[in-house]
């Protein structure tokens, strides 16, 4: 039976189930299939902080959203076109995000009285399908006993009922893979490898996956198969990559490019731990990972390794930075290279460990005693974490300074196709250790400075003639002995600031995206909001209006041309997942009336909301009425 094939340009699917239902794996596999197929894509995993929250409850719901398209896309999508709900709680938790007409595939097996009650349903919503006033009335609902069919399909393997039922996620994956014409080989190969040591489980999962596919092919429930063609992309070899993986690879690459051993001192914390896990696998690159007794020892050991002459890194999230602050101050004072990775999460305090936020910018800027400037670098997408890590390492080594690399939970766990760079594209990082001295040479001066960068020498133990003492007490200019002299302190405070400011000399000009050159409104952001801002800007432009976009990689120091760029626009909008931290910095430094667009919901900003906010500013700036309907649709309506 050949079914109808309908062309789509993009689809957003959300897999949702209980924490133990394997939804992250299911979403990840669907993503890999789509990546290999050649779609552009962006993902948004969303899971509870509890490892196993109470089964069947709303807090226990784990979901994975994937947005894939035949063209370049920037976000994981605002609202899912398709929801796969494995139990009542998953249905209830996600229903509010669905637009009218969305498709819902429900595993009916878990819609028992007990599970309905746990999810807070007084009656089974599936019983009233088709009734007037049904809460599911506006959606295309497919109630299917996914679990039952899975158990039936894998019965030949003699698994316990529980183990058999656990393969239901692969049945669902098979069904969705059929619906969207995904290639199946990558998932079959993956399952063969993943469960190589347990043949029964392996075969059951592959069988469930194939059965799901075949069910789509044969059942009359699904009359239409959809096709989303591959997206045109720049030539190159691609892979799908998460931010944490790209960041870890960037650190390995920084070690290779600087020919320095990498030393990671770290303490596990969500959502940064995967960087520690990944780097611990790469000892063959000379990477040492040290799981310390606490956050303080994590950075302490890294600072020791920096003194020893290694490429030192510590990885953490916001609460960990709070504990590391004193040592960051010591790194500022001793002027040693150190990369501090903060994978930001919802705060304050323990906050929302598994959710995203970008509210640690001012902590990175100012969260230390005294005048303790630290450069700040931020990646804008999962794949960009690779380049940002190399840039943080370049600045740290070149300027002998701690550097903040501000990722966030959305970048860390989200993924996108990444064009694998050629090695020739990577920056070369020069450690430039201070050379040994003979007895007759002039005395070594550990705080003499390079006239261009203002960096002091990196004089590592084991080098004859450079014996010296560093530490947290103020050092005399040049000679580096303890100094309590007021004029010297003033000079050293200003010099440390001047050194950080000097980094701006090494930065490329900003790229202003202003296709018409006539925009009066500039949208400026940093970090993971790049995707939503870009998508919002596109919507405004599609509706026929002008808007410019700039995205900052460097938050401290700001690029030299930023002030001039800001002056060129009537209105400046700063969307952030905080209460206005970048906008505060811009207003303070450039005296510009930067307006914030701020949400702290633990979730990425939505393109539609941003388009709305941008549109309002365009209306004010240009004195026009802004209708965000795409220009093409407006014309056809005439």
């Amino acid at each position, binding site marked *: 039976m050949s079914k109808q094939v309908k062309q789509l340009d993009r689809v957003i699917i959300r897999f949702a189930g209980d924490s133990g239902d394997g939804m992250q794996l299911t979403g990840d596999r669907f993503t890999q299939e789509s990546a290999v197929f050649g779609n552009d894509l962006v993902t948004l995993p969303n899971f509870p902080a509890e490892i196993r929250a109470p089964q069947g409850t709303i807090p226990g719901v784990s979901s994975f959203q994937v947005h894939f398209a035949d063209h370049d896309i920037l976000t994981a999508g605002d609202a899912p076109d398709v929801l796969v709900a494995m139990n009542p709680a998953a249905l209830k938790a996600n229903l509010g995000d669905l637009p009218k007409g969305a498709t819902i595939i429900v595993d009916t097996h878990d819609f028992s009285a007990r599970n309905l009650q746990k999810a807070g349903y007084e009656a089974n919503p599936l019983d009233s399908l088709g009734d007037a006033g049904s809460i599911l009335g506006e959606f295309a609902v497919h109630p299917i006993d996914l679990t039952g069919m899975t158990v039936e399909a894998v019965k030949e393997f003699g698994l316990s009922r529980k183990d058999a039922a656990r393969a239901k996620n692969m049945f669902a994956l098979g069904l969705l893979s059929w619906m969207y014409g995904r290639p199946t080989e990558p998932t079959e190969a993956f399952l063969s490898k993943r469960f190589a040591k347990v043949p029964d489980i392996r075969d059951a999962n592959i069988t469930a996956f194939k059965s799901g596919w075949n069910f789509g092919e044969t059942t009359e429930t699904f009359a239409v198969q959809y096709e989303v063609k591959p997206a045109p992309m720049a030539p190159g070899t691609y892979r799908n990559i998460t931010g944490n993986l790209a960041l870890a690879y960037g650190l390995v690459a920084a070690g290779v490019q600087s020919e320095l051993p990498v030393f990671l001192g770290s303490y596990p914390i969500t959502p940064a731990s995967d960087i520690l896990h990944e780097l611990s696998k790469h000892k063959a690159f000379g990477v040492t990972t040290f799981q310390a007794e606490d956050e303080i020892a994590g950075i302490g050991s890294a600072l020791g390794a920096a003194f020893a002459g290694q490429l030192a890194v510590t990885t953490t999230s916001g609460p960990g930075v709070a504990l590391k602050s004193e040592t960051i101050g010591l790194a500022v004072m001793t002027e040693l290279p150190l990369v501090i990775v903060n994978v930001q999460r919802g705060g304050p305090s323990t906050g929302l460990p598994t959710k995203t936020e970008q509210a640690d910018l001012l902590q990175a800027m100012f969260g230390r005693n005294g005048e303790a400037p630290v450069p700040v670098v931020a990646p804008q997408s999962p794949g960009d974490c690779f380049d940002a890590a190399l840039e943080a390492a370049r600045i740290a080594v070149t300027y002998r300074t701690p550097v903040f690399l501000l990722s966030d939970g959305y970048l860390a766990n989200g993924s996108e196709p990444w064009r*694998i760079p050629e090695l020739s594209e990577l920056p070369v990082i020069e450690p430039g250790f201070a050379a040994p001295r003979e007895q007759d040479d002039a005395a070594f001066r550990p705080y003499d400075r390079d006239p261009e960068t203002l960096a002091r020498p990196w004089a590592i133990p084991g080098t004859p003639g450079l014996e010296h003492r560093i530490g947290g007490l103020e050092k005399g200019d040049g000679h580096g002995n303890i100094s309590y002299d007021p004029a010297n302190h003033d000079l050293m405070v200003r010099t440390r600031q001047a050194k950080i400011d000097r980094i701006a000399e090494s930065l490329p000009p900003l790229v202003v995206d202003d296709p018409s050159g006539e925009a009066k409104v500039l949208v400026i952001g940093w970090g993971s909001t790049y995707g939503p801002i870009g998508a919002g800007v596109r919507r405004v432009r599609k509706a026929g209006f002008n808007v410019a976009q700039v995205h900052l990689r460097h938050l401290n120091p700001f690029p030299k041309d930023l002030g001039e760029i800001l002056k060129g626009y009537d209105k400046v909008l700063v969307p952030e997942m905080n209460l206005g931290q970048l906008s505060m910095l811009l207003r303070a430094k450039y005296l510009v009336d930067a307006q914030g667009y701020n949400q702290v919901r633990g979730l990425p900003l939505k393109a539609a909301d941003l388009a709305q906010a941008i549109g309002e500013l365009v209306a004010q700036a240009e004195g026009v009425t802004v209708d965000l309907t795409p220009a093409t649709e407006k014309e056809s309506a005439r």
Partner: protein
Amino acid sequence: MTAIDLGVPGLRSGVELVPTADGPQSAKEYSSDQEVRWCPGCGDYAVLKAVQSFLPDLGLRRENIVFVSGIGCSSRFPYYLDTYGMHSIHGRAPSIATGLATAREDLSVWVVTGDGDALSIGGNHLIHALRRNVNMTILLFNNRIYGLTKGQYSPTSEAGKITKSTPMGSVDHPFNPISLALGAEGTFVARTVDSDRKHLTSVLAAAAAHRGTSLVEIYQNCPIFNDGAFDAIKDADTKADAIIPLVHGEPIRFGAEGARGLVRDQATGGVKVVDVADVGESALLVHDAHNPDPTTAFAISRLTDAGVLHQAPIGIFRQVERPTYDDQARAQVASATSAASGDARERLAGLIGGGDTWTVV
């Protein structure tokens, strides 16, 4: 997760991988040009002199020695030595030294700390350094008072101590640093005294030679805020009765003409002080610093007075071999590196280009 055999090579001296000096060195070479600024009469002077005299005997290249300290009077120590040094932040010296020692097998790493620095704010790092057995020597200057902040009680001050912050007497129970180190599975745990240059030097030599974390508690007098805290073990009239000397392989006896000694206490499972005449010489406990079981060493450490000090065992309580964290960490990196073929850049290209890929032309 399952444990795997790490296949550690044979144990080595603490300074085995550190390059040695070309010729004889002098104490003067180890003195920096900085003026020493401790209070007159401070016990730190004696320790500094002893270390400056001892380091030449160690015969290492001066540039391969690093002293790391925390915060407190004693933590100024690195400024006065012409080696590499870092005067860090309060309590964190062991963590910084752990990074240094793990990164570089060719360094002799020393930590200088005090009772406040090591046992209050830095307690966590101290116990974990001991547990991991990172190759470094920790000199814990114990004056049983906070000096730099001008005289508050410390975690080794006796209960009831009247200080600026405890006008009615301290209600804090003190730590016994030796008991703490043994409890943390320290492999080299010793106690010595600032004023006994000969004993101090012999303990430093054994500590430096030990591969792993060596903890040396040094009783050190603060003449300003806690003067006389250790008079009992320094005064010629009382010291014979106050010091219980620990020498590996020797029966533990002390007092005038060795009239007193230690025996096992059958009632408590610990050890107790007896008159040798009462039990006979053969009943005395023979000190075994190499005993893999730390139980007896711990029992001996309990003979230290928790209050005003009248009696304390002095010497090396424990000296046992256990693989060090840094050796094992480096061995894993070395084994992975030697197993990899091709240069690092080619392997990097392989790493980032791995996984499921597709090519767009």
